[in-house]
């Protein structure tokens, strides 16, 4: 989730009303953002469904509603000239379809670029790029000085040897050079990989505005005395672009800018941007009340929605054009809940009569664990994720399920046996006295081509007896007592496994083969740095349970 930092004084100036830090902290949390701290700055994490709150102005529009300072749908007027008198026209060339297919744009005049406004504009642009824009892949934004542009402008492509001066550079570079030499070019080169021409915004004179999604040009850059702005947004999802554009123009308008429509010609179609009509959604009062467990009236719902900067006309909610999170009427319900205040909602447990039921294998495992305690065995608890090296050390060569992208090699496989990690446990407890007789119960994960998820889980019990006189016999005694207690006879069949001493290793048969028992070979013990003998068994409790309930 993106963390933004707001200048508290700037926020208070926009609110136009002094608010104490405690009130700010409480209301910011309760309206639905994750507050970090309030001091001279306000640090807050914005949930990914509310990119509109990434700008100071967008944040203020939400907060002033929640505080009841300015409620209802904010009014955004878009100046749109009559046909034939268009001042701002843009063409979208069909060549961009193969590279970066969609573009929208807008003009905002008379912006007062105070320090607060500039900081906010830079922050919202950066955060929108990262989150809403998926690191510029889905959405990239360019902001330009309108007075340096001659209309109409065109969004098109140019070959890689085309040259212009990118922002923060001293001379012109070819498009190809920008990707190899310019900091931003290097950072985002992967977004234009393998294309023969790159996207560009050009004006009537051929001046470059920007090279989306990489860099703007030096020629149209915004400066301290810039008064009017041209905004371009390009990417792969028209809906995401429109949302980003609306967030930007509404933020600028909140600071006093005036929004002017751009007449966009796109493959024979004509559109006007920005499109700031409120989104509409039907509200069903009964649905709201059923969902929330409240008995609100239409009047209450109206006032709650107005505090969330929506309006209610008849039974239709009208939603500000910068909101990107209203997919379904439940999203309106959540707005009602936030305005009502989750802290004011009385918790109540419903009379839903159901019968509790535990998974039978879990019950069985618990009983076995208690039995193991009765044998003076101490329970240990290791991770499911472990290292391939643990298995190699234990001379277990069977297939394991591998994790392909682990950040650390400590965790590159899922355990298929409990034994290796238990030997690790013993190796890290050598400074304590013996006997160290331990057990573990837990799932192990095995590869399986048949299963939907390509893996199967077994619920294992492993017992490791470690002390100077630990022996096969002692392990077998515990196994025998376990079998006695689950009511299933146990027999052993001589077998071989590299982890166990030859001639002292057996398959455990309880109806079917359920596990293995043996004395751990000295090679394995030494590999783990252990000089004390260890006898062990490990078995599948799921199988034991099936046999036990069948008999």
């Amino acid at each position, binding site marked *: 989730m993106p963390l933004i930092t707001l200048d508290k004084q700037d926020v208070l100036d926009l609110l136009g009303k002094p608010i104490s830090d405690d009130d700010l902290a409480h209301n910011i949390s309760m309206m*639905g953002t994750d507050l970090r701290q309030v001091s001279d700055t306000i640090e807050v994490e914005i*949930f*990914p469904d*509310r990119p509109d709150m990434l700008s100071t102005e967008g944040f203020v529009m939400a907060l002033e509603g929640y505080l009841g300072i300015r409620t209802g749908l904010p009014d955004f007027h878009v100046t749109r000239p009559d046909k034939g008198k268009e001042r701002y026209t843009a063409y979208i060339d069909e060549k961009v379809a193969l590279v970066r297919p969609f573009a929208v744009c807008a003009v905002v005049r008379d912006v007062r670029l105070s320090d607060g406004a500039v900081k906010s504009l830079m922050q919202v642009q950066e955060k929108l790029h990262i989150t809403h824009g998926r690191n510029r892949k*889905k959405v990239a934004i360019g902001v330009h000085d309108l007075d340096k542009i001659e209309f109409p402008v065109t969004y098109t492509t140019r070959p890689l040897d085309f040259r212009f001066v990118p922002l923060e550079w001293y001379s012109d570079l070819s498009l190809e050079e920008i990707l190899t030499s310019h900091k931003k070019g290097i950072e985002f080169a992967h977004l234009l990989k393998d294309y023969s021409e790159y996207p560009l915004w050009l004006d009537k004179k051929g001046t470059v505005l920007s090279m989306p999604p990489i860099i703007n040009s030096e020629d149209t850059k915004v400066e301290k005395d810039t008064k009017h702005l041209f905004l371009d947004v390009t990417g792969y*999802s028209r*809906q995401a672009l429109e949302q980003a554009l609306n967030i930007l123009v509404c933020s600028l308008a909140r600071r006093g800018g005036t929004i002017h429509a751009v007449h966009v010609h796109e493959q024979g179609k004509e559109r006007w941007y920005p499109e700031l009509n409120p989104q509409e959604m*039907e509200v069903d009062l009964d649905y709201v009340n*059923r*969902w*929330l*467990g409240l008995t609100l009236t239409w009047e209450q719902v109206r006032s709650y929605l107005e505090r969330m900067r929506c309006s209610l006309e008849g039974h239709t909610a009208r939603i500000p054009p910068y909101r990107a999170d209203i*997919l*379904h009427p*439940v*999203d309106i*319900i959540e707005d009602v*809940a*936030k305005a009502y205040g*989750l802290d004011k*909602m*009385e*918790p109540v*447990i*419903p009379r*839903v*009569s*159901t019968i*509790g039921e535990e*998974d039978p294998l*879990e019950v069985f495992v*618990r009983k076995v664990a*208690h039995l193991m*305690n009765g*044998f*003076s065995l*101490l*329970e240990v608890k290791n*991770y*499911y*994720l472990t290292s391939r090296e643990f298995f190699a050390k234990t001379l277990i060569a069977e297939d394991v399920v*591998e*994790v*392909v*992208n*682990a*950040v*650390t090699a400590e965790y590159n496989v*899922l355990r298929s046996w409990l034994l290796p990690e238990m030997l690790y446990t013993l190796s*890290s*407890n050598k400074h304590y*006295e013996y006997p160290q007789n*331990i057990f573990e119960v837990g799932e192990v*994960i095995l590869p399986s081509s048949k*299963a*939907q*998820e*390509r*893996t199967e*889980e077994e619920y294992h019990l492993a017992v490791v007896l470690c002390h100077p006189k630990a022996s096969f016999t002692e392990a077998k005694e515990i196994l025998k007592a376990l079998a006695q207690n689950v009511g299933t006879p146990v027999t052993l069949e001589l077998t071989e496994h590299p982890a166990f001493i030859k001639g002292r290793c057996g398959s455990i048969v309880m109806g079917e083969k359920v596990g293995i028992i043996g004395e751990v070979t000295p090679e394995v013990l030494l590999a783990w740095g252990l000089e004390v003998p260890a006898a062990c068994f490990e078995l599948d409790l799921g199988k034991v349970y099936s046999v036990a309930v069948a008999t």
Partner: protein
Amino acid sequence: MLTVQDKKVLLALEETGDIQELMEKTQLPEVAIMRSALTLQDTNLAEIHERTESVVELTREGERLSQKLPERKILDLLRTTDTLDVKDTSMDPSEVTIALGWLKRKGLVDILKKDESLILKITERGREYQEQRLPEEEVLARILSGMGGDTLSPETLKTLKSRKAITVKEKIHREIILTQKGAQKIREGIEFTEQISQVTPEVIRERKWVATGFRPYDITADVRDITYGKRHFVNQAIEYVRKIWLEMGFKEMKGPMVSSAFWNFDALFQPQDHPARDMQDTFFVAGEADLPDDSLVERVKAMHIHGGEISSTGWNYQWDEKEAQKLVLRTHTTVLSARTLAAIKKSDLPLKFFSVGKCFRNEKPDWSHLAEFYQTDGIVVGEGVNLRNLLGYLARFLQKMGIQNFRFRPAYFPYTEPSVEAEVYNPRTREWVELIGSGVFRPEVVVPLLGEDIPVLAWGPGFGRIIMDYYRITDLRDLYKNDLKQIRDLKLWMW
């Protein structure tokens, strides 16, 4: 009451108080003698006298110095002359430096600079010491002849210590002295019939205790720590969490830890380009999963693309089946809630389910993060359940976990709406700390799985932090370090 051993020692004390000699006389080991000595002291029959003695030993350097001090070598060279050029000493330069230092400090020579060379001139004092031993030489000689530390000049010992020539150790010397009362006791005569210490079958059978009685024990004496079996403390806490839900009538859900992205993300309406699905947060497993039956996949897909048959806009993008087939380690146990919703029938409602299981995050573990952790999910499915009910269950769970100071605030999860975070107040940092993510499942989640828009309350708290607080553990990794002493010594989970 004296044991036979005590009595043996008491008798021997008439002849000697020396431990070594007592050992020979009584044929008892030193510990047994000391134990008896303590008993005798407690009953005023003897006293233990202790004195510390310093033992001085020569180091290697000390042995070397005791042959001849470097300053003595130079004094010897000055026997036939008053002055000497340092160059003419034909000694090791580092040794010369040491020698000059001491000669100067002790005022045995004057050091004159002449052109490039240093000239040594013997003083009156130097002449004197040509005829007698320097203090260090005196002490070194005494040490060599075996004299004790207490008879030697402390000042010179200090000098020698600083010259790394000797080590001084403290040694405790014990002697047991018979008191008048002890001597009296011996004169009165000592009876050697032993009281019974161990109750044996023989003692019982032959009624042996009747004549002698039993020796009383020191019941206040400490005993050794035993090894014993016990459940791991995390599992004790898990048992309790399971019990909370079971008591409230919840049924257990189980499912695999390796999951298809379909169940982990898509079925929970997380768009395929959602940042949470990123490589960085999620462990991926090689291979491709089989997806569940086509109609379910189609319903989920339609929901993502255009909101399916309900009044939702969906996410409006291209949905890729291949993306859904990726295998991941489940990032939340909410995946089990999704699977359960797909498996139940509307006619069985209302239903309540819980799970306790491991989830995985691809993070480098540190004190507050683990790559795998427990989560306990719950869902309540039924017409008529609502957000206030969700808060009701969360409040009850928090109270049962011993948490009184909590609040609910809005949150965001792609699969719930409204979404609620339960937070706990930390009075130390004066901050609210996130504890339970929860909400009402979106219709976009419920309808494709269950077939109808019925409220489903859902939550999925981790509880590692609560376990840490209970056991006063400050590093999350210490929950699973498997230190056998820690597992044994931590108190029981008392609820």
